[in-house]
């Protein structure tokens, strides 16, 4: 049985069918991406996993149990960084630990040694507004990672960054991921990003979202140190074709 399994998951919000019979799986240690157009329902899928929405139809199991039985399985990184503007970076980073009941001092002691690795050394006492977009994103990621949860859910983590910063962040992220091998589910609408980071990719249709294709990406890592090779290009074109075909059918 897979680490995370969704079977025929459907969600209707108001009168809008958002997810339609979504089935996916993620193995332990695997990096899986969900690629789909904006407004398809990707963030909604994450809200379902993190308990923001009740399960309406279908089945989700996590670590061999029904999702409802597993508390605190996911570390979630929301689409915008969702840093609290009134908290200093260090206090943003310890938020999750505090919620779990860790004392502030212990939480800080746990986070401080990780700052350097995330390029945040010397910025612990800054407010989020004083940081660059890339730094804020790294802070949001560290806030997620520090919880030590079995699986990461990343909702378009690099979507708001300018092109250059985004590539730098992706490289940095790939190196970081190779060390830690977090089981991850990444939502993105950036084809290149999906191919660069994933072991497997699910492609969603426009809303109501269905899984229309599944791609494996058997390219050795690191993939972002050099320019993408022929194999990556081939997968990228195929993905693009799949997505464009969809929008042609649903203009």
């Amino acid at each position, binding site marked *: 049985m897979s680490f995370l399994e969704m079977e025929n998951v459907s969600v209707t919000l108001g009168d809008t069918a958002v997810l339609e019979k979504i089935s996916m799986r993620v193995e332990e240690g695997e990096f899986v991406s969900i690629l789909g157009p904006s407004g398809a329902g990707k963030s909604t899928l994450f809200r379902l996993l993190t308990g923001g929405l009740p399960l309406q139809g279908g089945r989700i199991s996590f670590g061999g149990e029904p999702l409802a039985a597993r508390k605190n399985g996911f570390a979630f990184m*929301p689409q915008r960084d969702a840093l609290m503007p*009134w*908290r200093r970076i260090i206090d943003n980073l310890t938020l999750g630990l505090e*919620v779990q009941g860790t004392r502030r001092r212990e939480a800080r002691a746990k986070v401080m040694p990780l700052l350097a690795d995330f390029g945040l050394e010397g910025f612990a006492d800054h407010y989020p*507004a004083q940081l660059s977009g890339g730094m804020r994103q790294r802070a949001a990621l560290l806030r997620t990672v520090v919880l030590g949860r079995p699986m990461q859910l990343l909702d378009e983590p690099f979507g708001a960054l300018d092109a250059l910063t985004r590539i730098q962040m992706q490289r940095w992220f790939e190196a970081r991921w190779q060390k830690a091998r977090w089981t991850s589910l990444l939502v993105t609408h950036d084809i290149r990003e999906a191919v660069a980071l994933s072991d497997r990719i699910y492609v969603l249709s426009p809303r109501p979202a269905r899984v229309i294709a599944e791609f494996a990406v058997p390219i050795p890592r690191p993939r972002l140190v050099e320019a993408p090779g022929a194999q990556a290009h081939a997968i990228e074109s195929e993905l693009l074709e799949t997505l464009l075909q969809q929008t042609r059918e649903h203009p």
Partner: protein
Amino acid sequence: MLPAPSRVVDQIVQNRALLWANTIPTVKATCAGFALSLSVSFGLSVALDFMPRLRRALFPIFVVSQTLPLVAIAPLVVLWFGFDLTPKILIVALVTFFPMLVALVDGYEATDREIEDLMRSMGASRLQVFRSARLPSAMPYFFAGLRISITYAVVAAIFAEYVGARAGLGIVILNAKNSFRPDLVLAAVVISSLLTLCLFGCTALLQRVVLGWRDVEGHR
């Protein structure tokens, strides 16, 4: 005929003992009334935030309470509670309570949904979400409401005194008017304006402490 500013200043200096003695009851009524309205509106706002159905039921009633004309209500309150401090406190509270409640309730609603989703994904309870996300999000709204209400508060206190009291700036104004002393009326008005400015300054100071994070570079 408007007395010259120099004459008004002159009156303030000459009547400083009288003005000072009558400023103190007004300050007391303003501060106590405002404290009452703050604690009630905060307590109620928390209750309403946790019980949206209660909010829908009670909000119309609060709105109605705001439509009552103060000129009619104030004499009744004085009639029921006498000439002491109590009716003034109640009138100040009545006038300032609603803007504070609305500011807080709107402020909670303005919380970034992604921050709430994030906290819930961390396993936070409803109370933790309130304390760490909704309450801090409401602070800018709270202070906007506070600055408006504090100016209403002084006016309400003086009006309440005017309707019936033993002492206070409202009484000074009433007596001066009755004895045709516009210079003394204006002297009391100047004092009440200074009082308002003073309280306004206090809220601004408090805001700088609580919302200090908004003053860092990068904001605005």
